[in-house]
């Protein structure tokens, strides 16, 4: 079953093109990477899927149901979680409150939230230690960990995550990537945006490469890793063939 499917999606910011004619899908339980240079349109794709911006053209469906005009918070309640660029944790709330809000859309009962909290804190013991601290007092990397942990609180069906390795030390990157693999193994579908191509291809089964707002290359990670066109896309060289 396709957890997520984009069909010919175009997004514009006023007159500026974000992405144009993007089609892609993610199967249930799969990890798919979305790659591309700065400004290629990766974050735009995630924002369109989570409903923060509305495509001018094309359709997005979630487990076969078209999203169309479903508002962004309802998509979260439906099981889609988006960890955006730049962490966006609530700095004036405590770490515990941030985590609790992560479960706001899906874990409505107090006991559900408490149980989920236990599971997430087991993955990130660092956070338990600072539970009552204001999130704004965490270091940048710790805030990134909190952003990811907060997303995990909702126990999503589909997790979209924008550059999770950004600003993390190698050990935290390992933890985060192990966790992504683990949640995928438990059935969560993952759409991963990542600048660290090698890392992304290691855990993703497939990947799409965006260049200037369009998909220029896609395929299984193993074959893409060997493909010279991948680095061409990053260097801005014209790439024609869809892999």
């Amino acid at each position: 079953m396709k957890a997520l499917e984009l069909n010919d999606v175009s997004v514009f910011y006023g007159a500026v093109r974000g992405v144009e004619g993007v089609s892609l899908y993610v199967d249930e339980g799969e990890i798919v990477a979305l790659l591309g240079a700065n400004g290629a349109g990766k974050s735009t794709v995630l924002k369109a899927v989570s409903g923060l911006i509305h495509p001018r053209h094309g359709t997005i469906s979630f487990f076969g149901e078209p999203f169309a005009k479903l508002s962004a918070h309802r998509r979260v309640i439906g099981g889609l979680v988006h960890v955006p660029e730049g962490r966006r944790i609530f700095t004036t709330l405590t770490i515990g409150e941030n985590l609790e809000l992560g479960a706001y859309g899906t874990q409505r009962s107090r006991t559900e939230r408490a149980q989920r909290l236990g599971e997430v804190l087991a993955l990130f013991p660092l956070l338990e230690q600072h539970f009552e601290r204001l999130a704004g007092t965490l270091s940048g990397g710790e805030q990134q960990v909190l952003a990811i942990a907060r997303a995990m609180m909702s126990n999503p069906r589909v997790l979209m995550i924008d550059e999770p390795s950004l600003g993390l030390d190698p050990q935290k990157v390992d933890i985060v990537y192990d966790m992504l693999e683990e949640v995928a193994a438990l059935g969560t579908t993952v759409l991963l945006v990542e600048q660290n191509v090698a890392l992304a291809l290691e855990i993703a089964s497939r990947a799409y490469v965006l260049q200037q707002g369009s998909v220029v290359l896609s395929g299984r990670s193993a074959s893409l890793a060997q493909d010279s066109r991948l680095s061409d896309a990053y260097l801005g060289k014209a790439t024609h063939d869809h892999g």
Partner: protein
Amino acid sequence: MSLFLNEIGNGIFLGAFFGLVALGYSMVYGILRLINFAHGDFYMVAAFVSYTILGAVIVGNSHAQWWTVAWVGLVVMIITGGLAMLANQLIYRPMRRAAILSLMIAAIGLSQVLENGVLVAPQWGATYLVYPVTTPPSGFNLGSNHYTWGQLIIVLISGLLALGVYFLVGRTLLGKAMRAVSEDRIAAVLMGINVDLVIAIVFFIGGALAGAAAVMTGVYYGQINYLMGFTVGLEAFTAAVLGGIGNIGGAVVGGLILGIVQSIGTGIFGAEWAIVVAFGALVLMLWFRPTGLLGERVARRM
């Protein structure tokens, strides 16, 4: 010295009103960064609505049962909350993408509409209306001052309402959602929070508190006027800024401080100096602490 204590007693009483109205300013500011200049007029409209309802239910009996006032008060809180929510829905929400300055102009416009609406309404109008219920004079002495039981109850109710809001915002999941929306609306949406609903609830609570304050004002002072929202609005706004606008505790503390300062000031200079004293206090405070009293303790900022 005992004169001074009397002024403090009066000030706390006055501050209870300021605090309740200030909470509405502060909460809306916290969540939208909007100074809702129409807020004082929600309070004024509530006074008139309660005047009419009380007039209808207690024909010719000015010593109404306390529970009649209580349930009318509750109904008026709901109506005023609904009015504030409606104003948000019809005016502020469609303007959400506009500059905040445009929203403030709209708020001033709404304030004018409400004042003039009450002015031209058939049963209401420009004159001072005598409120149908008053508090009996019996009470207790403290220092050389006499306080009525009504005054005590008003302070207690205000305190309870403020505590309720403090608990709601500080402890409940909804309150956490309010603070989340206040800090980062997009991140809040991504948590599955219905931001528009949360904003509507904030307006409702602010309006309801103003409604409660209005009924208590009517009962205590015994008269209402279509301009009463303007003065109280200014004073409550001053209280909110004094305490650190956007901050729940700040609104209450600001209200109390303003009440006490105003009491002492008018005790010395005379009642006609009330507004001057209020703004004098505000200017002094902002001089020393531009963020207001609790403005930097962001933990409870919404």
